[in-house]
C-alpha cells in the first residue's frame, strides 16, 4: 500500500514533467502545424538558464590564498564571487542557494526571446513545407544548439541543487496516515505544484483571453484561422514564444531532479512526441492527460511485483501504451479529426 502510494506520487511527478514538455509541443503542432524537433532543445536551453544564472552568481575573481595549496602544490588561487563583495556573504549565499527558482525570472524573458527569434527567423518559412522538411530543419537546429551548449558548458551533467529549505524529503506518510517510510522529496512536490500551476495558467490564458480564443479556434480548424487573417503572423509568433517559455521553465525547474547536460533535451524528445501523439495531436487536454497516464503507468511498471511477472516491462511500457492507444483510438486519447492527417 505504501509502495503503491509512492508510485502514484512518482507517476504524478513524472506526469507533470511530461505534460509540461508536451504542452508546448502540442500547442505548436495544433496552431502552427509545425513538427518541432527542436522542442527538446528548448527544454535543454531552459535548464541551462538555471546553469547560467548559477554561473553568473558564481562569477569570481581570483584571490591567492595564504594557507591553502592547489593540486600542484602551488598557493591556491581561491575564487571569490563578485556578489560576495557587493552584497556580503549572507546575501551571496542566499542568492546561490535560491538560484534555481530565481532562474525562472531569467528563463522567461530569455526563452521568449529565443522563441520569437526562432519563429521569425526559421519556423515561419516552414509553415507550408512538408513535415519531413520541418523535422529535418528543426532537428538540425537542435543539434546546432546542443553543440553550442556543449562547447561552452561541456558534456558532463552540472549539479543544480534545490534551495536548502526544500532539500531532503517530506514526511508525506504522516499527512495521509500512512507509514513513516512514505516520504517524498520536497523539490518534487514543488515541481508537481509548479507544473500544475503552469498547466492551469496556460489553460486559463487560452480559455479566458481573446487571444486564447483565436488560438483555440485555430487548433480546431487551421484554415479558419488563416481566414480570420488579421495579424495571424504575430499571433503565431506569440504562440511559439509561449511554447518556448513553457518548455524553458519546465527545464529550469527540472534541474535539481536531474542534473542537466547538453543532451537532456534529446533524451526527452522521443518521449514528448509519444505523449503528444497518445494524447491526440493538437489536443492540449490530451497532452496533459497522456503525460499523467504515461507517468503513472511507467511507475507501476517499474514495481518489482510487476517486473517479476513481466520482465523488462518497464523498458517498453511507454511504447507499448502508445501502440495500444493508437490502435484502439485512432486519434489518441482526445485527438480531433482532421488534425495532422494527410
Amino acid at each position, binding site marked *: 500500500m505504501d509502495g503503491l502510494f509512492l508510485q502514484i506520487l512518482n507517476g504524478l511527478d513524472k506526469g507533470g514533467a511530461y505534460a509540461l514538455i508536451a504542452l508546448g509541443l502540442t500547442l505548436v503542432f495544433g496552431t502552427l502545424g509545425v513538427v518541432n524537433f527542436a522542442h527538446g532543445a528548448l527544454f535543454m536551453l531552459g535548464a541551462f538558464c538555471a546553469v547560467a544564472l548559477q554561473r553568473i552568481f558564481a562569477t569570481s575573481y581570483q584571490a591567492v590564498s595564504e594557507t591553502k595549496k592547489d593540486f600542484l602544490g602551488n598557493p591556491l588561487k581561491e575564487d571569490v564571487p563578485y556578489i560576495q563583495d557587493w552584497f556580503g556573504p549572507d546575501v551571496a549565499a542566499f542568492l546561490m542557494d535560491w538560484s534555481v527558482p530565481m532562474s525562472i525570472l531569467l528563463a522567461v524573458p530569455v526563452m521568449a526571446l529565443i522563441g520569437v527569434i526562432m519563429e521569425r527567423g*526559421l519556423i515561419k518559412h516552414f509553415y507550408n513545407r512538408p513535415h*519531413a522538411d520541418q523535422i529535418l*530543419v528543426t532537428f538540425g537546429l537542435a543539434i546546432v544548439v546542443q553543440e553550442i551548449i556543449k562547447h561552452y558548458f561541456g558534456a558532463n551533467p552540472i549539479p543544480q541543487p534545490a534551495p536548502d529549505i526544500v532539500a531532503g524529503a517530506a514526511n508525506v506518510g504522516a499527512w495521509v496516515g500512512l507509514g513513516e517510510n512514505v516520504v517524498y522529496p520536497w523539490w518534487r512536490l514543488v515541481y508537481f505544484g509548479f507544473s500544475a500551476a503552469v498547466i492551469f495558467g496556460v489553460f486559463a490564458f487560452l480559455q479566458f483571453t481573446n487571444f486564447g480564443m483565436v488560438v483555440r479556434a485555430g487548433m480546431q480548424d487551421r484554415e479558419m484561422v488563416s481566414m480570420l487573417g488579421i495579424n495571424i503572423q504575430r499571433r503565431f509568433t506569440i504562440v511559439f514564444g509561449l511554447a518556448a517559455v513553457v518548455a524553458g521553465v519546465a527545464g529550469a525547474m527540472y534541474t535539481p531532479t536531474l542534473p542537466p547536460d547538453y543532451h537532456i533535451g534529446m533524451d526527452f524528445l522521443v518521449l514528448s512526441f509519444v505523449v503528444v501523439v497518445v494524447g491526440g*495531436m493538437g489536443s492540449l487536454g490530451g497532452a496533459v492527460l497522456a503525460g499523467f497516464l504515461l507517468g503513472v503507468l511507467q511507475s507501476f511498471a517499474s514495481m518489482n511485483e510487476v517486473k517479476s511477472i513481466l520482465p523488462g516491462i518497464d523498458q517498453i511500457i511507454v*511504447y507499448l501504451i502508445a501502440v495500444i492507444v*493508437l490502435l484502439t483510438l485512432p486519434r489518441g486519447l482526445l485527438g480531433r479529426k482532421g488534425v*495532422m492527417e494527410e
Partner: protein
Amino acid sequence: MGNTQSRNDLLLLAGIAGFTLLAPWLLAPIGAAYPDLLQKFCIFGIFAIGFNILFGLTGYLSFGHAVFIGVGSYVSVWCFKLLTMNIIPAVALSVLMAGLFAAAIGYVSLRRSGIYFSILTLAFAQMSYNLAYSVLTPITNGETGLQVRAIRTNAELSLRDGDVRVIDQALGIQEVGVPITNLFGMKMSGYPGFYFCAVLLIICFYLAQRLTRSNFGVMLKAIKSNQNRLNYTGIHTRPYLIAAFVISGMYAGLAGSLMAVTDPIAGAERMQWTASGEVVLMTILGGVGTLVGPVLGAGLIKFAEQKVSSWNEGILNSFFSFLPESLQHFVVDVVSLFVGEGWHLTLGLMFMVIVIFLPGGLMEGFRRIMARFQKKPDETVAPDGAQQAAE
C-alpha cells in the same frame, strides 16, 4: 518518351555501377578509399534506397526502420554461429526474416497514417531496441553485441561463447583462430567484401529503378499523391503499402546482413531511434523520391561521421600550414569548431542549410546546376529534359 526514359535509366544505372566499382580509385583523393568506409557507403546506400521505396514513393515516414537492420544483423551472426561462415545462407535468411518482421510491424502500423504511423513504427523499434539491450541478452548478447567465436570445444560451453557451425563441420572445414566470413572460400572483409556489397548495391538500385517505373511504383506514387482517390479508383491501398513496407524492410535487412558479413558483429544500438532517424536524414538530404539522392545522402553522412570527425587540430594545422602563423592559428581555431569533436555541429548546419536552400535535397541542387548549364547553350531546352537526366 518511354524510350528516352528507359535509355536514361540505363545510362544512370551504368553510371552508378561504374562509379561504385571504381570508387576505390575515384574516392582516393578525398581519403575515403578504404574498405570499411566504402563498404559503409554501399550498405547505407542500400538501406536508404530501400527506405526511399517506402518514404519516397508512398510518403509514409517510418521512424523505426533501423529495427530491420538489427534483425538482419542478428540473424546473420546467428547463421555464422550455427550454420556456416559462408555468407549465402546468412544473407538469404536475414532478408527473409527482416521481411517477416516487416510484414508483422507493417500490418499493424499501416492501420494508421501520417504522424500516427511514424510514432507506431518508432514505438516498435524502441521496444525492440530496449529489449535487445537487456532482457533478450541470451539471444542478442546485449550491450556487448553478438560476435563470432571459435567452434566450441565442449557442449558445456554456452552457445554464445563458442559456436557450432554444423554445415562447416559436416563439410570438414578447418578453422584457425577467429573464423572469417567467406563466399565459398573468398574472404569477405576488406576489398572483396566491398565488391560484394557494391554488386548488391547495383542490383538493389536496378530493382528499385524497375519498381519505381513499374505499375506497382506508379500505384505507390498515386498513394502518396492522393490515397483516398486511389481507393475510389478501385485499388485497395493497404496491400500496396504493406508490400512497400516489406520490400523496404527487406532492403534494410539486407543492409543489416551486409554489416555482419563485412564485420561479424551485431549490436542493439543499430536499432535505436537515432539510427532510424539517420536514414530519414540521408534520404531527405539526398532528395526524397529520387533514385540517386538517398545513396548520395548516405555517403555524405557516413563520410562526415568517419572523416570529418577525424580531422583533429594536428591535421588542420598541417593542412593550413601554408598560411602565415597568426592567420593559421585563427583559421584553425575557427575550423576546429566544426570538425573533429565538433563534427555534429557541421552535420546540424548541413541539415539546416540544405533544407532551407535546397528543399529537394542535393538532387535539387544538381538539377539547378544542370538547368543552368543547359540553358546557356540553348535557351529552348525543355526543363523536363534536365529533370529526367538529373534523376
